């Protein structure tokens, strides 16, 4: 612990030694009551200059008439009597002083005392709260998180006006000292789950730098090599709030406009936030469509490959006529034909992802329609293959969570290879293996495939179908370790 000394120059030099080459560190020297030397230190651009001038420098210069050297605790005296900033603390040591200054705080050092005043004058430039571009919702709040953690916390706090809300602050990364926070509702979250989350976050504290929620996600999840995302990422405060009420914790880190939600179970990734606002029958229908689309993405092309290559007799003769005719004269064998189409689609998708929206749309149209049309006309790809592959691609967009959609889309390729190697047996085994893996995964002690395995009948009300809201607005039992463990 680096204590402040009574010599003001010694203190200043120490601080400068912590922040060498810091051209943005401002050292304003003033004399209080024309006698006592005082330094005001802050990092320019992170502080509100006006408030420093108005509430710190001006009172110190103009109003202090006492002789500070006769007062016991000059720092405390000044803070109590003259500073008109809203947040100020007395510090006696210089630990974390760099972090505090970089948070936009302003340090007042007074000569001949071993105390200093730390005032919050921060005015860090940040983005305004805007409408989300990625997670579009038809109903529900429009606002989304920004990069500033304080604003994000405010957004959440404003929505949960409950005395159970707990916010625990922590600092992640030994180099970048990023502010982070765990948010949860006390008494709602399972204590074992909470301890696990805290334990895992503490374990990664010693890493040099953590920049984004994606880093945390990978560092704290149970199965880094697993296929499926085990934590939810969202940029909408209302989604976070809804998850908090279900007994989950949210993790925020400064610099990332996202919240991580832990634990997450498999089925949640297929549930849209609007499902709860929409009418019950339509939302049930939408959910069933999503489930169907996920199965379609996984199974449609492998089964189509099996029909083409191995077990043609399973489709009716009228369909065989169509498929047979479309396959005539195609140079590539079925497996390669489907694989090239799948890869082409992935190329188009990945290419369009980072382009600005108008160009991205053009790419989609050019890629989808023009190349598809040309490929079939040229006889490189059969029209039925094009239909099957593009249907699966469209189906994959129905999955509301982007990470889950990516995972499922990725799983298509192993399934396709299995289908190529073993025919329908490969598809069966692949599907079975996915189920086995899902069953054996855990997310912070919660079984990942809950409430299906282990089965919890009452929680099934909010899975692939949705019961009326009054039946499901409560904590899911499968998120409790004691109940859902087996």
């Amino acid at each position: 612990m680096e204590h402040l000394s009574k010599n003001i120059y010694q203190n200043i030099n120490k601080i400068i030694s912590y922040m060498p080459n810091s051209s943005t560190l401002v050292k304003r020297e003033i004399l209080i009551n024309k006698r006592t030397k005082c330094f005001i230190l802050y990092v320019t651009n992170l502080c509100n200059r006006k408030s420093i001038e108005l509430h710190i420098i001006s009172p110190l210069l103009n109003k202090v008439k006492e002789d500070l050297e006769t007062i016991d605790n000059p720092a405390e005296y000044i803070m109590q009597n003259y500073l008109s900033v809203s947040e100020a603390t007395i510090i006696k040591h210089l630990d974390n002083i760099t972090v505090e200054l970089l948070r936009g705080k302003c340090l007042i050092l007074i000569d001949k005392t071993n105390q200093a005043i730390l005032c919050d004058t921060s005015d860090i430039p940040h983005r305004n709260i805007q409408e989300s571009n990625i997670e579009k919702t038809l109903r529900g709040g429009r606002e989304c998180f920004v990069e500033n953690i304080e604003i994000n916390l405010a957004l959440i706090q404003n929505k949960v006006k409950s005395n159970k809300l707990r916010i625990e602050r922590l600092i992640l990364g030994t180099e970048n000292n990023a502010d982070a926070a765990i948010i949860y509702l006390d008494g709602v979250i399972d204590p074992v789950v909470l301890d696990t989350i805290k334990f895992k976050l503490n374990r990664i504290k010693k890493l040099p730098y953590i920049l984004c929620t994606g880093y945390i996600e990978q560092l704290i999840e149970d199965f880094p090599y697993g296929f499926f995302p085990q934590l939810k990422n969202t940029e909408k405060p209302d989604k976070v709030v809804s998850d908090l009420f279900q007994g989950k914790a949210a993790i925020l880190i400064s610099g990332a406009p996202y919240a991580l939600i832990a634990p997450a179970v498999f089925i949640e990734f297929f549930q849209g936030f609007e499902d709860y606002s929409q009418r019950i029958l339509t939302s049930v229908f939408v959910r069933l469509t999503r489930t169907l689309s996920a199965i379609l993405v996984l199974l449609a092309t492998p089964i189509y490959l099996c029909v083409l290559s191995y077990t043609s007799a399973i489709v009716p003769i009228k369909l065989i006529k169509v498929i047979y005719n479309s396959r005539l004269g195609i140079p590539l064998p079925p497996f390669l034909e489907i694989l090239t189409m799948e890869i082409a689609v992935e190329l188009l998708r990945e290419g369009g992802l980072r382009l600005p929206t108008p160009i991205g749309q053009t790419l989609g149209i050019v890629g989808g329609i023009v190349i598809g049309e040309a490929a079939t006309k040229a006889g490189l790809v059969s029209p039925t293959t094009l239909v099957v592959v593009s249907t699966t691609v469209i189906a994959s967009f129905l999955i509301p969570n982007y990470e889950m959609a990516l995972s499922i889309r990725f799983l298509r390729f192993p399934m396709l290879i299995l289908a190529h190697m073993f025919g329908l047996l490969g598809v069966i085994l692949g599907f079975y293996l996915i189920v086995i893996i899902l069953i054996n995964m855990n997310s912070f002690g919660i079984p990942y495939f809950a409430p299906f395995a282990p089965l919890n009948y009452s929680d099934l009300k909010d899975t692939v179908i949705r019961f009326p809201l009054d039946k499901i607005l409560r904590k899911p039992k499968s998120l409790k370790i004691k109940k859902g463990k087996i």
Partner: protein
Amino acid sequence: MKRNVLIILLIALTTFTGCYEMEPIENLSIIIGIGYDVQKEGQKKIVDPIEMFVFKGDGEVERLISPGIAETIYNTINDRQTVMSKKFLVGTEKLYLISREWAEYGIEDLLDTLVRNENRNEIAYVCITEGDTKHFFSMVPIDNTSMSEAISGILKFSYLANFFPKEVTIKELLFMYHQTGRRIILPYIVDDKGKPKIAGICVFDGAKLKHIIPLEEAFYINMIRSRKSDGYISIIKDNNPKICYTIKAKNYVNVEVDYDDKLIYTINITLKGNLKTDTIHNTAITAKEAKEIERTFEEYITEQLNKTIEKVQNKYKIDCFDITKYAAAKLGKHSPLLTDEEFQRAQINVKVKVILVDLGRSMK
């Protein structure tokens, strides 16, 4: 540990994979119809014409008939593959045609194959043809791409008239052959001026064709042996076809069996129907008259049925009505009373009940 299993799994997968001599769909020949003939000259060789699709691209589909000639069913493949340019795909066939000559010779081998070979399509239609099956395959289909589809269409919708049973499929053929107290009864198809036509039913004894019964008699036999099929019945008055009753009826059959020195079958037939034509009454039909029409039909049908039963018992001498199975259900599957002799001396009573559900919209 799990990783080890995974690694072994992956190695196994990658090392054992390869081409399994499976051809993509465009290298297969899609069979839609299979026929069985007997070569007339020489030593009774099987001629096995097969109808299959030939695809020309751009949605154009043609067909090809390729016969194989050999002693046994599967040896015909030996013969046919010598001229085929593609691999066979069994399982898509929609129709089995069996020529009358071959059926009379016996179809035991086919019946065994159909049970043994799991790739055969059990829901394909089946019938007996007059003359060579190749002749039927080479007819020109009118509103289908192939003759197999045309004939299976005829068989599929045959239940809409003449009280033909609903299932004329391979699985039904197997049921009829194997189940105690039943025998194979299949539709008989003839060439009617270049078009296939159902002309009657074929009754088998075991696996051999025994009798071919023309449609007029088959009408009443079907009425007893089938369930919930449709048929049209007319009563003509004064030999003038313009003056008649016609009903469309659905048949509901219930058979009771008794034994008293000889088998006594009581066949209750309920015909639920709509009155389609009535040119006899010129006034509005009252409840009484409706009853009268019903009674007229009951009497008429009972008479016809009794005539048919007598003929079957005396002329054909085997159970064409598929009623021995009721005796088997009553007396046990190994009862000695299930023979044809017992059928011939059995007493068969028919009770017909006609219910007119709908008299039509005509007020008259």
